[in-house]
């Protein structure tokens, strides 16, 4: 079995007033898009910084490409590209000069620089504005240039901290497509953090959910969705409180509520829906559509957050 690109074992980072990352153990296989999901302040950026050797862990260890993040972080950085919390663009240099500087940092040959920089600027729709200072640009345009800079030297591993933040839907979709393509075609491993759960569901081969520095769940988005309760969504009219109470009284029903005009019933295990439909029809409900499915990743995420908040071991 191939060695995972990233492996952490009990990775921990303390700051004076808070434990930012708490006993984190994950493995990221090569060539996957790995989504690191969590609310603000959950330790995502701190984890990326530790993996790049920009801060040291206070406990545990991590390896990237088999290199220890404490002792061999220069080897890790040589093989990685990063878009961190801020775009990190030089406001006194033009867009083209920003890429030119980092192309020299990454030791791209002159011919390669002359080919690669225009290629990336054109790809991200920035060619016409290449001589402008990014200081005056929108957040989305800065983000595009920062992503182009991260891809400049064709790294084997990409760390992307909220890459689609500030991008318009078309640009965000194009970037997702680009990342999926990089992983599938060139075997690039992508470690990305995002708040956008729909994005993670579409893009990521594996996701990890983190809260207050603790890992809550890890796996393929489908596996995580399967861990949620099966559900039935019913479109129609006549979902009265009496109907909801009748449903909630049944043993195969874990929960029932009306959301956006649709009745959502969460089932216990793989219970049949036929008796429930029959109950609704007898109660006078007019049914137009019935769909049985799994929870979305967003629902699983919110459930995990709630469970962790209710857990006796979680903080205030």
């Amino acid at each position, binding site marked *: 079995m191939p060695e995972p690109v990233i492996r952490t074992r009990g990775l921990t980072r303390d700051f004076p007033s808070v434990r930012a990352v708490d006993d984190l153990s994950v493995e990221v296989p090569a060539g996957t898009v790995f989504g690191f999901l969590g609310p603000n302040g959950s330790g995502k950026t701190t984890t990326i910084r530790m993996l790049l050797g920009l801060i040291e862990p206070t406990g545990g260890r991590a390896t990237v490409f088999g290199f220890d993040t404490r002792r061999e972080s220069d080897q890790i*950085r040589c093989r990685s590209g*990063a878009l961190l919390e*801020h775009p*990190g*663009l030089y406001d006194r240099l033009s867009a083209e000069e920003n890429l030119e500087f980092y192309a*020299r*940092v990454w030791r791209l040959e002159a011919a390669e620089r002359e080919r690669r920089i225009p290629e990336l600027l054109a790809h991200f729709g920035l060619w016409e504005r290449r001589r402008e200072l990014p200081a005056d640009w929108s957040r989305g345009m800065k983000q595009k240039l920062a992503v182009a800079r991260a891809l400049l030297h064709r790294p084997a591993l990409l760390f992307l901290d909220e890459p689609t933040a500030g991008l318009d839907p078309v640009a965000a979709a194009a970037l997702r497509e680009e990342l999926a393509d990089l992983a599938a075609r060139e075997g690039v491993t992508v470690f990305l953090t995002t708040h956008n759960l729909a994005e993670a569901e579409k893009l990521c081969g594996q996701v990890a959910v983190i809260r207050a520095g603790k890992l809550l769940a890890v796996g393929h988005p489908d596996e995580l969705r399967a861990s949620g309760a099966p559900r039935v969504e019913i479109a129609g009219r006549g979902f009265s409180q009496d109907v909801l109470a009748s449903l909630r009284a049944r043993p195969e029903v874990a929960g029932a509520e009306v959301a956006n005009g649709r009745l959502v019933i969460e089932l216990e295990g793989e219970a049949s829906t036929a008796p429930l439909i029959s109950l609704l029809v007898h109660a006078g409900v007019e049914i137009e559509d019935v769909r049985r499915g799994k929870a979305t990743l967003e629902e699983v995420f919110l459930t995990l957050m709630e469970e962790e908040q209710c857990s006796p071991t979680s903080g205030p």
Partner: protein
Amino acid sequence: MLTDLWTVTVKGWKDLFLYRGGIISTLVVLAAFGVVQPALGGPEFTRGPFLPLLLIWLPLFLAATMTADSFAGERERHTLETLLASRLSDRAILLGKLAAVVSYGWGVALASLSLGLITASLAHGHGRPLLPPANTLAVIVTMSLLTSLLAAGAGTLVSLRSPTVRQAQQILSTSLVVLIFGGTLIGRALPAAWKLRFVTALSGPQLVRTELALGAALLAADVVLLAACLATFHRARLILD
């Protein structure tokens, strides 16, 4: 290593000159010390102690001001972390930034010297070039490099631990004020015999020995500061938030 160092140095120069404030302040310095002062100073400008004293102190101020921006500025503008996440080694980043500041301070001092000599010759030379003695020229060239290094080293140490440029500049300007006023106060408090000995050391046959001793002391201070910078510069300690 040398290629990386050069890349960082060139980027440092662009940072210094690619904004209006940097160009204007450099032009003001060149105009003041390369044109106005020599024009007003008369023929004595090239012969008296003013020229070497001015051009040895000048880089201290220039390099100290510019070096505050080197790390604290990148930190404030959120570009430092991206630079640290690149393949550049700690030494290439540190020495490249130091080289940019030192070459700026030294370069402006030498440009002021050249411009000042041209201005003095045109204004007071009556068709002949006015040049200081060769040993004075050697002292200016060497000592201005050493003071540039001194300011860049001290400034880098402050800039590495300062979250903002303003904080770094405040610490550096306060240190310079303490250095100047402290030196003046100590000078005034010295007994008359010591003062006489000091004046004797700065004139006549003892001058060369004093210059060599001062140069050696500055060089030692530069080496200590550079060693301190190399020991302090550790990227895992540079992200302060």
